[in-house]
């Protein structure tokens, strides 16, 4: 792999990793929350399962993103949790501490990857050993000796002359006042070696439990050269005199006390090194102001406990999709009501009702803005899809012995979340195709006078009301002869006289593949047809352009959202129908000369083609004003390559319509893809051209 390739990949991976970091932080926080709520009580199955799931998700994610050392701790943790879950092992309260500690270590590794914070390998090894010990020892308490050894080695570097035990029982509203304990701890750490233990008091009735209250008593053990006054200063704005008890413990009693080791859990935020000099960025602001009080949080960037960054939670909220959809529906109703008002007002004298008209215009602006804002809730950047490809391209390149560079343009382009989910598979297939078929091996490329490194470009942009995604490669291009031969072999109608524009879509035929060999990457002939049907199911279009030896460009054009459709309204008698714009080729008023009858079926001649006429009134048994084709309007439709001319009375207007389901309260209506509500509040059916063609064939 080339150097510049690697760099491009790193940038993209970073974005991808961010998702994992956030998820991992959430899982850790969830784990912590459950563990803290236990307070030495045996967890029930559901809680155990929740912890297990969190650990499992972290492990899975870490493995997938290649953070293998994170999987080591999580794996052992998962094994232990699994044993608990299946009741192979009894639960002991020491496990909670151990799990919390493991969570700390994972958080440390996480910030190591995310913020470049220092990762202490000995802590990782220690927790792993302890967890393994726990699994083997069937619930034996963790080896306190190992722990003490690490602690003392860390401390030995400092010439501490005092050891204080601080018991801090804060007001329950501590957090509500905006006090950040981690900052407080950071300041304590600057004074010397610190270990912290949280003693959770009984939260009482869990239903009435308020998670914003601090019910914890904190026990700090600080070895320092500082005086008691200096320590009390740190707590000055946090604790009243009686809330903080400071006890001086002689240094040599350290290892003697039976609970000494047990009450020496790791600092909550292990990222911070015991040695203040080597403390990473998190402590740095405090170091710069050694006497400054940081009782209230101002340092939003400080990584807080369990690897969660402050401000992250405020930046976004998770809302159920159904709630968003409900909102979109309601705003849709508002827009319809506004249109109805506007239609009613249009008949009123503009001079007499000037104020009303002005207000209605204002209403129109406001509703339009509101609709746009609401729609944008569902929009997500396409980078979520794009970011998965660099890794795929790299892996495929290695596998196939090719060299490839992936460029992405317009990753910030936003589209509907529902579309994002559906576009992923087709795009994956297209990129795979590029790697497998389009790009040549380096030797071939050099021989053809091209750079040995092939380029694949993924480009997204918004053009009008549509999102256009293009996959471009500079490979060999589509082989016209091969496609034609293969098409004929498979009985797909094709001839040598077809233009390139007609030949390329042949690759969308089911079962079509020009790959010489079927590989595990692609070439099985399931694919391009799936790409096409997936895109069409989103009301999208696919176009191909290709030049032999220079490359191929596949363009997917999608509507902005699934909920809205561009349509042409047509009239048949008293009824109005919506024809989706993406299936319309053109519309025309036929001349008598262009109308033919073949075997009793009406056809219209459009340039060199004879196209069957489908009179909509006949198909739907409607009373139409126009029954002869020469007096009506023909709308040429294209349904998966098949053409037909729909005969209607008149063309009315072009709209963006909100798609509503008929099936919610009724059954599927043949020939329709749903319904919409027009400006006058009436319902209009949206036509499904493919199904209309089927109906027409059946009726003949």
């Amino acid at each position, binding site marked *: 792999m080339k150097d510049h390739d690697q760099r491009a990949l790193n940038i993209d991976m970073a974005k991808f990793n961010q998702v994992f970091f956030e998820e991992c932080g959430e899982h850790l926080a969830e784990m912590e929350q459950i563990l803290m709520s236990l307070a030495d009580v045996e967890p029930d199955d559901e809680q155990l399962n929740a912890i297990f799931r969190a650990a499992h998700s972290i492990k899975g994610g870490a493995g997938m993103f290649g953070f293998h050392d994170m999987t080591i701790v999580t794996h052992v943790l998962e094994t232990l949790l699994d044993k608990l879950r299946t009741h192979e092992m009894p639960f002991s309260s020491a496990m909670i501490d151990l799990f919390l500690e493991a969570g700390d270590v994972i958080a440390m590794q996480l910030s190591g990857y995310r913020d470049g914070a220092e990762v202490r390998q000995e802590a990782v090894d220690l927790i792993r050993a302890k967890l393994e010990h726990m699994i083997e020892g069937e619930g034996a308490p963790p080896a306190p000796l190992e722990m003490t050894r690490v602690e003392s080695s860390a401390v030995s570097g400092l010439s501490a002359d005092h050891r204080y035990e601080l018991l801090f029982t804060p007001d329950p509203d501590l957090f509500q006042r905006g006090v950040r304990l981690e900052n407080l701890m950071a300041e304590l750490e600057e004074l010397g070696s610190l270990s912290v233990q949280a003693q959770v008091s009984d939260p009482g009735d869990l239903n009435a439990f308020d998670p914003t209250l601090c019910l914890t008593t904190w026990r700090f053990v600080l070895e320092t050269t500082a005086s008691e006054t200096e320590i009390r200063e740190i707590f000055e704005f946090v604790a009243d005199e009686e809330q903080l008890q400071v006890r001086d413990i002689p240094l040599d009693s350290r290892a003697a006390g039976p609970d000494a080791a047990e009450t020496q859990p790791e600092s909550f935020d292990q990222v911070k090194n015991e040695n203040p000099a080597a403390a990473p960025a998190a402590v740095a602001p405090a170091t710069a102001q050694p006497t400054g009080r940081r009782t209230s949080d101002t340092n939003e960037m400080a990584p807080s406990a369990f690897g969660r960054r402050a401000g992250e939670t405020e930046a976004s909220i998770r809302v159920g999709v159904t709630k968003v959809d409900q909102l979109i529906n309601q705003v849709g*109703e508002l827009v319809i009501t506004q249109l109805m008002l506007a239609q009613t007002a249009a008949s009123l004298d503009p001079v007499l009702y000037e104020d009303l008209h002005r207000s209605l215009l204002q209403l129109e602006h406001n509703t339009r803005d509101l609709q746009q804002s609401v729609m944008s809730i569902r929009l997500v950047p396409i980078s979520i899809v794009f970011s998965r490809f660099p890794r795929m391209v790299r892996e495929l390149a290695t596998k196939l012995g090719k060299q490839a560079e992936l460029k992405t343009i317009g990753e910030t382009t936003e589209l509907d979340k529902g579309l994002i989910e559906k576009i992923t598979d087709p795009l994956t297939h297209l990129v795979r195709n590029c790697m497998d078929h389009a790009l040549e091996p380096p030797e071939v490329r050099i021989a053809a006078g091209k750079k040995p490194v092939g380029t694949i470009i993924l480009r997204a942009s918004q053009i009008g009301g549509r999102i256009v995604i293009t996959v471009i490669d500079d490979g060999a291009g589509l082989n016209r002869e091969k496609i034609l031969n293969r098409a004929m072999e498979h009985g797909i109608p094709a001839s040598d006289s077809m233009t390139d524009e007609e030949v390329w879509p042949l690759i969308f035929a089911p079962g079509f593949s020009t790959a010489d060999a079927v590989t595990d990457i692609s070439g099985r002939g399931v694919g391009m047809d799936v790409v096409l049907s997936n895109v069409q199911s989103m009301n999208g279009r696919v176009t191909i352009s290709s030049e032999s030896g220079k490359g191929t460009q596949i363009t997917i054009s999608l509507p902005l959202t699934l909920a809205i459709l561009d349509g042409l309204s047509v009239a048949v008698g008293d009824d109005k129908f919506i024809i989706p714009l993406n299936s319309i080729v053109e519309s025309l008023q036929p001349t008598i000369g262009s109308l033919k009858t073949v075997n009793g079926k009406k056809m219209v001649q459009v340039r060199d083609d004879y196209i069957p006429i489908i009179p909509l009134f006949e198909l739907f048994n409607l009373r139409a004003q126009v029954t002869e084709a020469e007096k009506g309007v023909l709308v040429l439709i294209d349904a998966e390559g098949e053409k037909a001319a729909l005969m209607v009375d008149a063309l009315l207007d072009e709209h963006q319509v909100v798609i509503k389901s*008929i099936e919610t*309260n009724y059954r599927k209506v043949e020939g329709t893809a749903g*319904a919409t509500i027009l400006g006058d509040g*009436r*319902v209009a059916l949206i036509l499904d051209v493919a199904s209309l063609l089927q109906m027409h064939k059946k009726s003949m």
Partner: protein
Amino acid sequence: MQTESETTQAASEYLTFMLATETYGIDILKVQEIRGYDTVTHIANAPEFIKGVINLRGVIVPIVDMRIKFNVGEPTYHEFTVVIIMNVLDRVIGMVVDGVSDVVALTPEQIRPAPEMGAALDTNYITGLGTQSDRMLILVDIEKMMSSEEMQLIDHSR
């Protein structure tokens, strides 16, 4: 005292409506609202008694005309034509009737088993006959009726 409170508990309320000369009753809890008949959008190739769909505050609701379905009364549409919007089987369905009269509470003693004949509706859907002073109500299991195959409101093939 005890028995009285029990009987009041057991009484259920019915919305009564007219189809030609007969009075019918349906469980009030299935009724969402009552509204006037509005222009409907016809559905292609639907049976004649399915008048079409309406826009009920953004929801597409099918409208059934019971007079056509059961061949009673005159299917005329004017400003007094009434549609009962019902919630049955998690669906919203509208039903055109000749008129809505009132809501009555019937205790089990006031309900007699349905005879094998006499109503325009299939006796399968009739749960009983209710009597109140000199009136007789034909009580209909609207859920069973609307979900039946013959109403063609629900796709039974799925």
